[in-house]
């Protein structure tokens, strides 16, 4: 399986996927850490994938989305944005609505 196929498979088979530096319990970059905090606050289950573990993945994810930076959030196979976009959406309640529209339960909506 190529790295592109592997990434595609991950974002298709998990509702919410965050490609990040470090892990949700130990982010190794402030931008990744901000998105982790937001997702945890919203209370949505997600899969964190550490791009620092694999150089091919770290480059591959940038090509997959044609997006030059990490973190990258995917919901139902769709690229949502990086740290700034996720934070803006969260502040405007758009992130919470986005999860609701996609049928993904969050603690706040429960």
């Amino acid at each position, binding site marked *: 399986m190529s790295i592109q196929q592997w990434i595609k498979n991950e974002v298709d088979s998990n509702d919410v996927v965050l490609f990040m530096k470090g892990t949700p319990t130990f982010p190794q970059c*402030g931008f990744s850490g901000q998105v982790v905090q937001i997702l945890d606050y919203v209370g949505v289950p997600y899969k964190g994938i550490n791009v620092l573990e694999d150089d091919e993945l770290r480059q591959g994810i940038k090509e997959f989305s044609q997006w030059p*930076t990490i973190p990258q959030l995917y919901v139902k196979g769709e690229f949502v*944005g990086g740290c700034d976009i996720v934070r803006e959406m969260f502040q405007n309640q758009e992130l919470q609505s986005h999860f609701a529209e996609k049928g993904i339960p969050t603690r706040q909506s429960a």
Partner: protein
Amino acid sequence: MSIRNLIEQRLREAFAPQSLEVIDESERHRGHGGWREGGETHFRIRMVANTLAGQSRVARHRAVNDCLKPAFDAGLHALAIEVRTPDERDPRGGGPASLS
């Protein structure tokens, strides 16, 4: 040309912004991944531009990222992007932006 000047020049040419701030935040990331001696690795841009009207957030960020590809190629590591049109509220508070 410094990366800061490269960023500023390319953004001005591509978006004809009403206001633009290019802030080098590299020092705040000293010792973190991607940081290197001399700075110019971590930047924040604050841009107000009419030319962004009618585009989604992702489209705007993509347009900025694409425009700044030469800066990424030259060593830019992290880019925080705050962009809006003059009609949109400044999320950092205050009223509509004053035009510079």
